[in-house]
């Protein structure tokens, strides 16, 4: 009998129904689930309902006691959220168990989920199917290794099976898990290719599993979702501590990821056990009694992929001969004639190249249930959890290449990177997970510089996220500093940490009031925040600056004596609060607060000139302008924006018509630099979409900033550096799309990343201006820059990683998903009257070049690990690989239909040298372009 894991009574309650009815209905459903489980067996992590809690009549709650230890309370808001997001009763309780715990009045652990809780889909922890197990048993043929793993687990150790793509890691884990399952180990199988699999999935499974003495948590494919590794690993000790559940982890991953996680970031204490495809394939061939030439052919064809070897062996037994690459491709795409099936196979293989999967819901929506069922029945795609994929990576590459070469109709689906990018854009979580694993797919040397910057930038933004999370948990008030709080919150929102954002918001929203329509500016509740001291100091700096200007006074016409720190502080706060509320995570965005703040900007702007107080400090106006632009969906239509922008533009224009100064003075002496003020004003004008009006001023400002790089690039000027980089990054998108600007941004971004990394390690300097908000500010800037860079460069990065850079692109800028030119009906080597490579021949050369590139990448990656640093032979061969890679890059640039005989011969020789017997025989043209006429 299926267990009632979905809401029943709750679904019958309308969403606008009174809280009491929601609570009663949910209580019924939870009670039903608890009883059904109790009746079935003794559950690993049992739960039961306590009496309803009506202590607070405005907010009644359902109270559940989990494992007789943890009290979980759910308000009607939380229950409605769970139902809307598709979380059933078990998922809801699992989400509560891993949620942040507090203590109830008796000091016992307690979790409260209310309407502010944002539910996340909980991935299912389904193990392999019987058909998959049959295949796994055929692959996992090394009883010694299996025995080692079993012994380690029985000795109470976590184990990590380490191996490359297609080395049989999953098969080994599955076989070990099955054996241990028979010996009383409860099994929880997480396939981390599903981004929703995490600690909640583990708890959800424990809520349904029968009680055992030990549990084995199989975390298959750690590399697929590195951000989830840390919470997943910390969940096992938590469950042991709270509920006494003995959970051991059996993980599978690549060596690069194993090095990373055993090295400490995040830390996983596990015994690594290597698994080699080579040994497994040898064992398979021995078991099948395949020797001699056939054996060699299969070994060459399989490369390092046991699954390919298995398929090759099956074909060998069926037809009595070893298949070639083409036949293998035919086998993996056999009889796929229907356009929908071809489309599905192409999409899934493109995703499979990066180890990605497509959820069942999405696959059914895109291709229809019958198509997917048909492909599954014919074993052309595979099911993992609630998703589909083409695995392994090597098989996915074969299928993708076959589709590109033989199925003209998939041209309209776009290039492989277009398919992947479209898929990733469905969820930020997926982009994050993919980016986090991408540096493990390829060695950094093989990527173009922009892509390498993107990866290291992503890496450090993850470090920043962890730092911000820690600091926010420690003190969500950020020492009562509005600037720090807002910048930290903006970064946290961008880095998908909504819970931490909410903690900060609770403080900020309580600390500032702006609901009163009589107020001209936001007012701090209970005295000024610590930022106010900065404005007092700014007043003193202004006085010193005035002395330097002498009798003429400051060009703004406002002497320091007239500066009101309180008004400037509150105006600046207006800008910050706008930025804060407008960048809130969607679930917590409060339209009413944003409207009140926007209304306030109309009152606060100078009625004559449109600037925001003080006239001497343009960056305050710039800050408010940025806030409005974040909050207002149509900033160009906003009169306040138009007037403030005009004021900024006039300030940077010369006194003579047509003259452009191109920089803004900070007006605050040595507190801020002119470079910082200029960069902020540029960002504000670009955000305000004042391209038409401010084009000249922005161009002049960027030129001025470029000339001042020695100033803003100095050590200790990181805030300036971050502002200037953001200004350039903004302008790269909107104004100056050029590789030079992009390179400039990337170079300085890498400097900023390095310095931020150092900042995170050292103690703050007490007497530096803006010291309090230094790191949160850098975090906010960096995450913003990185996110923008991700948007603009990810597709190119994917092209690098998937090795499709060598293919002709759909459009010159790579942005459009225009259909590729339709391939010829029969592309193979049709003679053309012209000289040079024919279209068919060129495609063969390009495919071979891709193979060469991948082999070189693999070789470099295999030889680059730190453990091999002291091995002379490996280092010599690595240097040789780098030389070959440089030569390859040179030759690739010359590989087109007009390639010379020298280029083709050099590439062919290089391919034979690198790839050995797997290098194909390549077609040479009958006549070369550079050949003299006979």
């Amino acid at each position, binding site marked *: 009998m299926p267990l009632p894991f979905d809401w029943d009574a709750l679904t019958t309650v309308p969403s606008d129904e009174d809280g009491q009815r929601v609570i009663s209905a949910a209580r019924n459903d939870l009670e039903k689930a608890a009883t059904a489980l109790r009746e079935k067996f003794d559950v690993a992590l049992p739960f039961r309902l306590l009496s309803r809690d009506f202590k607070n009549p405005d907010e009644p709650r359902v109270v559940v006691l989990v494992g007789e230890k943890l009290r979980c309370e759910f308000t009607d808001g939380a229950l409605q959220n769970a139902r809307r997001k598709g979380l059933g009763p078990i998922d809801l309780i699992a989400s509560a168990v891993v949620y942040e715990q507090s203590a109830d009045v008796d000091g016992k652990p307690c979790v409260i989920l209310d309407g502010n809780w944002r539910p996340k889909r909980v991935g299912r922890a389904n193990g392999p199917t019987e058909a998959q197990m049959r295949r796994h048993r055929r692959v996992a043929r090394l009883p010694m290794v299996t025995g080692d793993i079993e012994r380690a687990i029985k000795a109470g150790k976590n184990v990590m099976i380490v*191996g490359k793509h297609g080395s049989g890691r999953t098969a080994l884990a599955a076989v070990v898990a099955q054996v241990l399952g028979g010996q009383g180990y409860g099994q929880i199988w997480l396939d981390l290719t599903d981004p929703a699999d995490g600690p909640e999935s583990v708890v959800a499974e424990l809520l349904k599993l029968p009680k055992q003495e030990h549990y084995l948590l199989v975390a298959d494919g750690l590399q697929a979702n590195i951000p989830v590794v840390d919470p997943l690993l910390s969940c096992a000790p938590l469950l042991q501590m709270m509920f006494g559940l003995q959970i051991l982890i059996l993980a599978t991953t690549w060596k690069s990821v194993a090095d990373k996680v055993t090295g400490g970031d995040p830390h996983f204490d596990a015994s690594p056990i290597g698994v080699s495809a080579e040994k497994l394939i040898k064992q398979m061939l021995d078991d099948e009694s395949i020797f001699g030439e056939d054996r060699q052919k299969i070994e060459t064809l399989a490369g390092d992929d046991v699954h390919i070897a298995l398929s090759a062996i099956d074909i060998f037994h069926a037809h009595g001969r070893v298949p070639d690459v083409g036949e293998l491709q035919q086998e993996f795409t056999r009889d796929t004639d229907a356009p929908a099936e071809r489309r599905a196979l192409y999409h899934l293989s493109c995703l499979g190249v990066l180890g990605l999967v497509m959820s069942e819901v999405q696959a059914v929506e895109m291709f229809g249930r019958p198509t997917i069922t048909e492909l599954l029945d014919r074993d052309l795609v595979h099911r993992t959890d609630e998703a589909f994929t083409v695995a392994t990576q090597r098989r996915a590459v074969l299928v993708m290449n076959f589709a590109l070469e033989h199925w003209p109709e998939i041209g309209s689906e776009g290039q492989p990177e277009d398919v992947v990018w479209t898929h990733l854009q469905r969820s930020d979580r997926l982009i994050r997970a993919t980016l986090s694993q991408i540096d493990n797919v390829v060695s950094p040397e093989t990527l173009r510089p922009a892509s390498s910057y993107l990866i290291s930038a992503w890496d450090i933004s993850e470090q920043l996220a962890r730092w911000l999370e820690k600091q926010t948990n420690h003190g969500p008030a950020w020492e009562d500093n509005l600037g720090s709080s807002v910048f930290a919150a903006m970064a946290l929102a961008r880095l998908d940490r909504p819970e931490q954002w909410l903690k900060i918001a609770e403080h900020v929203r309580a600390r500032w009031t702006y609901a009163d329509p009589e107020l001209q500016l936001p007012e701090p509740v209970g005295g000024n925040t610590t930022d106010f001291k900065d404005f007092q100091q700014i007043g003193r700096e202004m006085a010193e600056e005035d002395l330097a200007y002498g009798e003429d006074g400051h060009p703004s016409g406002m002497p320091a004596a007239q500066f009101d720190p309180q008004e400037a502080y509150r105006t600046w706060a207006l800008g910050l609060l706008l930025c804060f509320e407008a960048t809130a995570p969607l679930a917590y965005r409060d339209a009413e607060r944003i409207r009140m703040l926007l209304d306030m900007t109309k009152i606060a702007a100078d009625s004559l000139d449109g600037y925001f107080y003080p006239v001497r400090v343009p960056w305050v106006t710039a800050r408010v302008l940025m806030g409005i632009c974040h909050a207002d969906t149509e900033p160009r239509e906003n009169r306040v924006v138009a007037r403030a922008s005009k004021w900024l533009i006039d300030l940077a224009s010369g006194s003579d018509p047509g003259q452009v100064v191109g920089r803004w003075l900070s007006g605050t002496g040595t507190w801020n630099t002119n470079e910082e003020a200029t960069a902020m004003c540029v960002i504000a004008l670009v955000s305000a979409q004042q391209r038409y009006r401010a084009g000249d001023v922005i161009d002049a400002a960027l030129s001025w900033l470029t000339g001042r790089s020695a100033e803003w690039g100095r050590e200790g000027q990181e805030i300036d550096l971050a502002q200037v980089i953001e200004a350039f990054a903004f302008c790269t998108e909107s104004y100056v799309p050029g590789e030079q600007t992009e390179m400039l941004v990337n170079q300085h971004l890498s400097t900023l990343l390095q310095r931020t990394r150092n900042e995170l390690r050292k103690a703050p300097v007490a007497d530096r201006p803006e010291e309090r908000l230094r790191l949160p500010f850098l975090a906010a800037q960096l995450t913003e820059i990185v996110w923008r860079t991700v948007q603009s460069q990810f597709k190119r990065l994917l092209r690098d990683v998937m090795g499709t850079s060598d293919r002709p692109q759909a459009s010159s800028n790579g942005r459009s998903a225009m259909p590729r030119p339709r391939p010829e009906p029969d592309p193979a080597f049709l003679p053309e009257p012209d000289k040079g490579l024919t279209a068919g021949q060129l495609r063969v050369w390009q495919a071979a070049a891709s193979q060469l590139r991948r082999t070189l990448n693999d070789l470099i990656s295999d030889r680059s690990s730190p453990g*091999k640093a*002291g*091995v002379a032979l490996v280092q010599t061969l690595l240097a040789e690989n780098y030389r070959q890679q440089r030569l390859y890059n040179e030759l690739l640039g010359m590989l087109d239909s007009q390639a010379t005989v020298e280029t083709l011969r050099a590439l062919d020789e290089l391919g034979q040298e690198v790839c050995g017997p797997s290098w194909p025989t390549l077609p040479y043209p009958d006549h070369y372009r550079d050949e003299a006429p006979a």
Partner: protein
Amino acid sequence: MRAALPASSSLNFLAGIFAGAGINLITSVATGPEAEVSSTKIALDSVLWVAAAACLTWAAQVVQRGERDADVEVQGRLTQEEKEEIRDHLERRSWRRARLPIILTVVFVIGSVALLPRFIPWSALL
């Protein structure tokens, strides 16, 4: 040419010998026909035998870890010569790391043999 270094299993075997045979030795001495050895001496010698066995097990663990590291490192598209050199390099490294436990083992074994009751008549020599 690869260095002929003993495998970790040999060290484990030897550790078993020390723990078992050593204790057997002193038991037979202590319970022999002329058993007049003080309990303190027997206890001290037993401790030394066990310490020698423990240090050798420690050394075996270090060497075993090196072997496991080597298994992980030799994956991928490497030539046979590279694999052998990597294995050799990592095994040498693990033997270097095992120097301290091995030295301690030797010291303990010498000490325990020297202190075997009635093996060397220390009172007559000193």
